[in-house]
């Protein structure tokens, strides 16, 4: 068995494929055992509140600030393009549609992966390496129910709300730039927006962020739960969370967009 023989390379490919399969199997089992069945340790509501705080409330500042800036930037860029066609009133429509359909769900999911996802992975990984998870098991508490499940739910609930807040703040920022600064007539800014934005756009955005919430949280929690219980393993798992979650969000966004807006 030479190290660089063709056969050896094929073996490595096969090995990588098997690893991926095994990881997806383990993560599905984790998800199933965490979310299905009796909650065990009671007082589930308190645990959820605590995680909603850590995952949702603490992500608010970054979501608010980025949403505001992104809305302002779209308004500026959009105005510069639209003004050459003399239809700068459409800037409201542009800001709202861009935010609702794409940037709201996607950027907030990416920020969420970086802020809350990495924190979830690091926290659970740390609990694993300090044997807190084993310790819970020995006390007779299922860590999947006590640690994993509330974090999953908190992620599922938080991200769609964060995305909605992101979009609202973005529209507000866009309105500030367009109306107060660039002098677009306020009535046509909002009127154009309301005429062109459909309820389906809002709903599609929410569906997107629900899917992203599920995937990002799942990846983050699984990476923490499955990591090597060493400090090196935790840092690698944290990196993997951000990379995998971001790639998953962007890939899924394309698929969802194709499904939603592909053939009108």
């Amino acid at each position, binding site marked *: 068995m030479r190290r660089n023989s063709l056969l050896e390379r094929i073996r490595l490919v096969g090995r990588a494929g098997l690893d991926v399969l095994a990881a997806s199997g383990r993560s599905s089992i984790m998800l199933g*055992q965490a979310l299905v069945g*009796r909650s*065990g*340790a*009671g*007082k589930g509501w308190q645990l959820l509140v605590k995680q909603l705080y850590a995952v949702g409330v603490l992500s608010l500042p970054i979501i608010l600030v980025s949403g505001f800036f992104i809305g302002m930037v779209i308004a500026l860029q959009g105005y510069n393009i639209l003004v050459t066609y003399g239809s700068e009133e459409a800037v409201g429509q542009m800001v709202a549609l861009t935010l609702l359909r794409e940037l709201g769900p996607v950027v907030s999911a990416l920020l969420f992966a970086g802020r809350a996802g990495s924190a979830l992975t690091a926290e659970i990984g*740390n*609990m694993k390496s*300090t*044997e*807190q998870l*084993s*310790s819970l*098991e*020995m*006390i*007779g*508490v*299922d860590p999947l129910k006590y640690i994993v499940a509330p974090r999953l739910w908190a992620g599922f609930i938080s991200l769609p709300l964060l995305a909605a807040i992101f979009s609202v703040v973005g529209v507000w920022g866009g309105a500030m730039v367009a109306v107060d600064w660039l002098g677009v007539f306020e009535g046509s800014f909002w009127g154009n927006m309301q005429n062109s934005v459909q309820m389906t756009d809002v709903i599609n955005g929410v569906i997107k962020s629900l899917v992203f919430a599920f995937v990002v949280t799942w990846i983050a929690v699984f990476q923490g739960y499955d990591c090597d219980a060493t400090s090196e393993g935790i840092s690698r798992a944290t990196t993997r969370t951000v990379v995998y979650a971001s790639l998953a969000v962007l890939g899924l966004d394309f698929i969802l967009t194709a499904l939603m807006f592909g053939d009108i």
Partner: protein
Amino acid sequence: MSTDSTYAVELRGVTFKRGERTIYDNVDIRIPRGKVTGIMGPSGSGKTTLLRLIAAQLRPDRGEVWVNGVNLPTLTRSELFDLRKQMGVLFQSGALFTDLDVFENVAFPLRVHTKLPDEMIRDIVLMKLQAVGLRGALDLMPDELSGGMKRRVALARAIALDPQILMYDEPFVGQDPIAMGVLVRLIRLLNDALGLTSIIVSHDLAETASIADYLYIVGDTQVLGQGTPAELKESTDPRVRQFIKGIPDGPVPFHFTAADYREDLLGRR
């Protein structure tokens, strides 16, 4: 099958593999009830694995693990969680929950498994903390404690539900002599006062031998020797002697298995 048999834990013909590597091969270990039993062996010999087998956090590839008359590998996940209430484990790092203070850490098992009123939980927690001498540390967070104190708080938490079996994973590692003395005394005291069965996994020979009633020496997938500390000191088995006397080379070789030295240096490039 009754719980009052002389052995609290019995491993019968247990084989455990991690990947390709065999950690235990057809091992029999019996832990006498009400005694302090030490399980010793060189680092990397799978002592912690043994604890996890007894706690059913790992499943043996073959063999039976009987705890209080129940064969663990046959239980379901939820039955296991119920059974674990009879066991306490003191992990190497203490494994305190970092987001809870000392009081809540000790109160945690009580809150989860009992419906006791708050005042009663408070009384029990105070008693357990008093037993380990840390009643004054009630309001501290785990990261404000020294390593030795963490372990004592973890000990208080492990005995909160009055388990029948208490396991210690490397309790003496990284402790200053005073903290070590405190722990040794506590383990013995708790064992006798609460009528526990204690299992100590350790490679610190002197401390373990000073409190254990019975010792197992494991290594090389086998039980190398067993007996009271005095018996083991007189053992003629070369592997047991090497471990007890701390001889660098012997049946456990100094060199990790490798190709021929001369050939490695001069031979193929």
